[in-house]
């Protein structure tokens, strides 16, 4: 089922030092359809992560609207945005793993409250771990992993529920070339499965991999004019 994600004049502000409002995003417009990859590029602090989290429903825009198939999800109550995130896979910049749980348990976490047979949950975890070369680390606690391994576990956690929307913040961070190919392969597979993949990245290896259908450049919270590829 094809979906359309849109932003109309989205702005996000936060109380800065001394209480004066600080604009993290201002006047953002964009549109992306499922089955494509959208890359958000820009310098550190340009607002890539904030826009990614706003699209994922983690942040509510101070102005403007985020629409999915014409429905303004940004106006929904928190409870409904929680449930909407079951169609979403999120990869945080810092991986955000639960250190004293094992790799497999971290990947299982999103599926725990869902009404799915246990076998289906198990198979989804096993397949995702194998696809990202994490099967040997399944029983290891997340605290014992390297940076690259943590990022791949976080990606596996984002992919395990076969999400309709995948929001990945720096998915290629700490990855060597061998594992980068695995990551790109999984992102492409998600796209080919019909998901809308939104990446926030600095990594030219990712942009040159021929993965992205649309690139949006952000400068100081605004969309840079004419910069789309």
């Amino acid at each position, binding site marked *: 089922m094809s979906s359309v994600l849109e932003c109309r004049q989205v702005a996000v502000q936060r109380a800065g030092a001394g209480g004066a409002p600080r604009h993290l995003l201002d006047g953002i417009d964009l549109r992306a359809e499922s089955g494509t990859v959208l890359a958000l590029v820009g310098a550190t602090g340009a607002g890539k992560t904030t826009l990614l989290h706003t699209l994922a429903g983690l942040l*509510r*825009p*101070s102005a403007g609207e985020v629409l999915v198939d014409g*429905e303004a*999800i*940004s*106006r*929904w*109550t*928190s*409870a*409904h945005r929680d449930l909407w995130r079951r169609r979403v896979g999120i990869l945080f910049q810092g991986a955000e793993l639960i250190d004293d749980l094992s790799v497999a348990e971290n990947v299982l976490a999103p599926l725990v409250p869902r009404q799915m047979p246990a076998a289906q949950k198990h198979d989804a975890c096993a397949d995702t771990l194998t696809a990202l070369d994490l099967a040997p680390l399944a029983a290891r606690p997340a605290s014992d992993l390297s940076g690259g391994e943590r990022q791949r576990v976080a990606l596996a956690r984002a992919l395990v529920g076969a999400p309709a929307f995948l929001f990945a913040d720096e998915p290629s961070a700490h990855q060597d070339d061998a594992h980068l190919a695995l990551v790109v392969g999984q992102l492409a597979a998600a796209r080919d499965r019909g998901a809308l993949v939104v990446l926030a990245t600095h990594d030219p290896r990712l942009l040159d991999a021929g993965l992205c259908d649309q690139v949006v450049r952000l400068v100081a919270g605004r969309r840079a004019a004419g910069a789309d590829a």
Partner: protein
Amino acid sequence: MIPHPLVLAVLGCDLGALLLLLYAGWVAARVVTNWQADATPEQLRLERQTEAAGLAGSAAALLSLLGSLVLVVAFAGALPGLVPGAMCGTGVLQATGGRGERALALRLLALLLLGAWRLVARLDARTPRAPLVRTAARLLLLAVPVALLAGLDTWRALAALDVHTPVDCCAVVYRHAHEAAAAGTQQPATLRAVPWIVASPLAALVLGVAALAALRRGGERSARRTGLLALAALAFAPIATLALVRVWSAYHYGVLQHHCPWCLLLATHDLVGYPLFFAILLVLFEGPTAWLAQRLGERHAELAAAAAARTRRATWGTLIGLALYVALAFGPALLWRWRHGVWLHG
């Protein structure tokens, strides 16, 4: 207060419900004053607390219902053994010095208000923009003080329970019957029973027709049909209760003048009072719920589907309650007539 386990259970449930209701009421007050659909951190925190308050309120409603059921079981079955002279709940209520009746009435009112709040809150939770959040909060703020009063009255009634002074349990029941007889109406029992013998089947018939009419899908006059159903249910509940106590209970007791509601809850009468009063309460709850859900569905388009489903379920609930009452109230009377050839009332 006698440390009877069921008394402890009622107090435990009420204490739990009280704690949860105070939390839910605090959040409801903040919703009524501070709720605006924007993206400030305060609004986000308020939305989260509203979710939590909804869960706390539901848990409190469940505990209140459980506490009320345990209280009725205690009055009907466990405490008569400790009150000298008490044969059933009537004697126990006497031993509470009249506080018991008021506590039960307040608990019923609190449960009605919590039921209305839960209906609105659950419909509201089914829609992404929560159009009814303020209405639900106001209803909860209405229910909280009533629930607190009910809890206090219950504790006072149980504390005032006198297990030393004998009560004249059945004498009270027979005195009421004789007072009714001597109140200038020297008619025989039959004539005094006629109004109830006519009114209760008639009320049941009207309620049944209204429910079946409300079940018919759609149509522009569906709001009026559920309105009629609500009115029929509100009229049916008191008539059915009084008719049960004044007339139809005689066919369970086998005695004419024993107008006692509590003896129906005794094991000697197969606890038939529990399903009977459950049926009446089901009609009392579900009848108005059908109309309320219908009205909410009309006023908020995004609620239409969820409201229609709830209206249909409430109408079926009313029909089930009605069928249960007819079977257990009128059934024994018809059986008696078929077996003995005459009505017990002559």
